[in-house]
């Protein structure tokens, strides 16, 4: 593949009125450019692909530590500037760290030949995403009706007797059933990605904890139907712990996790 083909084209971004057509070679990006920068990506896979391609790396031979480092730098910068970051980016950050950790851990004995390279799953996903991304571009370029070609459509002068569609009661009922089915299916997907910022979930958890002493972590997750929601809850709890707003107590090993609001007692000491 030639370099030209690998060049990513993210048109139209402007920073302070100036066209932002090339991304800086180094990692530093001015904060206001950062959000626009991330907006150009369709998600963490897209960003990873960009990082890989920018450095003309072979997707099959990605250096996890470099890639993770760069990826985390973007994520950290976004969080540092308190820019909203979609949960999917955090999920990917967790995945990368986990992969890196598995590489660092010494593995006992000889490496099992059958053991799968832990990078493999990520590589496969990146390749599949890139294929579909290319496919989307190809579809975009296919000749399209109304844009590249038009249909012979002579309006017939002879307006014949206007024929009305006929319907039956089952048709109405059927349309109704279809609506309810669609409603049922879409209900779970009403939470859009911008809704999932860690800070928002921190507030939510704090509100839940107000007026009650503690809650089981599992109960906090009630209503979470997707993995990224669970991850955001988890990160929100970690963040709250870091900021000494809550504490997490586990009474016995592998027992349930209790999330408790940290309150100052009469002596001003944190309980």
């Amino acid at each position, binding site marked *: 593949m030639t370099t030209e083909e690998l060049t990513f084209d993210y048109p139209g971004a402007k920073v302070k009125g100036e066209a932002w057509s090339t991304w800086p070679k180094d990692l530093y990006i001015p904060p206001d450019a950062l959000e626009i920068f991330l907006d150009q990506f369709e998600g963490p896979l897209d960003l990873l692909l960009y990082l890989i391609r920018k450095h003309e790396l072979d997707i099959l031979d990605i250096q996890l530590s470099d890639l993770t480092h760069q990826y985390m730098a973007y994520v950290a910068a976004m969080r540092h500037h308190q820019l909203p970051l979609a949960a999917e980016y955090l999920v990917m950050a967790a995945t990368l760290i986990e992969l890196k950790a598995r590489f660092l851990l010494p593995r006992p004995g000889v490496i099992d030949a059958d053991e799968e390279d832990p990078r493999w799953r990520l590589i496969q996903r990146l390749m599949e995403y890139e294929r579909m991304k290319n496919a989307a571009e190809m579809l975009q370029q296919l000749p399209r009706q109304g844009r590249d070609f038009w249909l012979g459509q002579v*309006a017939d002068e002879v307006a*014949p007797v206007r*024929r009305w569609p*006929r*319907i039956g*009661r089952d048709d109405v*009922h059927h349309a*109704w*059933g279809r609506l*309810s089915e669609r409603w049922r299916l879409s209900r779970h997907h009403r939470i859009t990605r911008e809704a999932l910022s860690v800070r928002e979930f921190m507030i939510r958890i704090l509100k839940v904890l107000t007026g009650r002493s503690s809650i089981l972590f599992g109960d906090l997750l009630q209503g979470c139907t997707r993995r990224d929601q669970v991850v955001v809850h988890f990160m929100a709890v970690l963040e709250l712990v870091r900021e000494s707003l809550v504490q997490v107590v586990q009474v016995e090993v592998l027992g349930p996790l209790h999330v408790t609001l940290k309150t100052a007692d009469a002596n001003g000491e944190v309980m």
Partner: protein
Amino acid sequence: MTAEESFVVPVLEAALLTSAQPLTLVQLRQLFDTDVSLADLRKNLSTLEQLWHGRGLALTQVASGWRFQTQSWVRPWLSRLEREVEPRYSRAVMETLAIIAYRQPVTRGDIEEIRGVTVSSPVIKTLEERGWIEQVGQRETPGRPALYGTTREFLDHLGLQSLQQLPAQDLWEAGYDAVTATTTS
């Protein structure tokens, strides 16, 4: 450009055959970036007209411009085709009708909330023109939106005496409560 250039007639033909409205000489001139005199254009249109002589369509000049239209001799054949193609209402029309039938009186906003998409004016108009829905009042909220309900004619068309005879709708209930809960909260 001269009247003889070979691409002019086919381009005119393609433009006229793919346009839903008649095209004026000015519009037809826009097709070509070189300067084309109106005289040249007319000459080419006349060539095109002769090319279609004796066929099922004819190039005709009407009040608002030039267009192709069917000749009377092919109409008996074409009308046979129409008879076979039963017109149908789009999904948008059927779903809007179903919401009005099952949830009346409803505003356009209610319909949009349930369908999750904007309800276009033509959809409402189609149903109004057909005489199946009508305005039954206005909701006393800001903007006083129109409330729609179904008509007697609608029941007649379905062969029903009352709305109670519409097939059961219980499969919706749970979901709909959720909608109303979110819209009223």
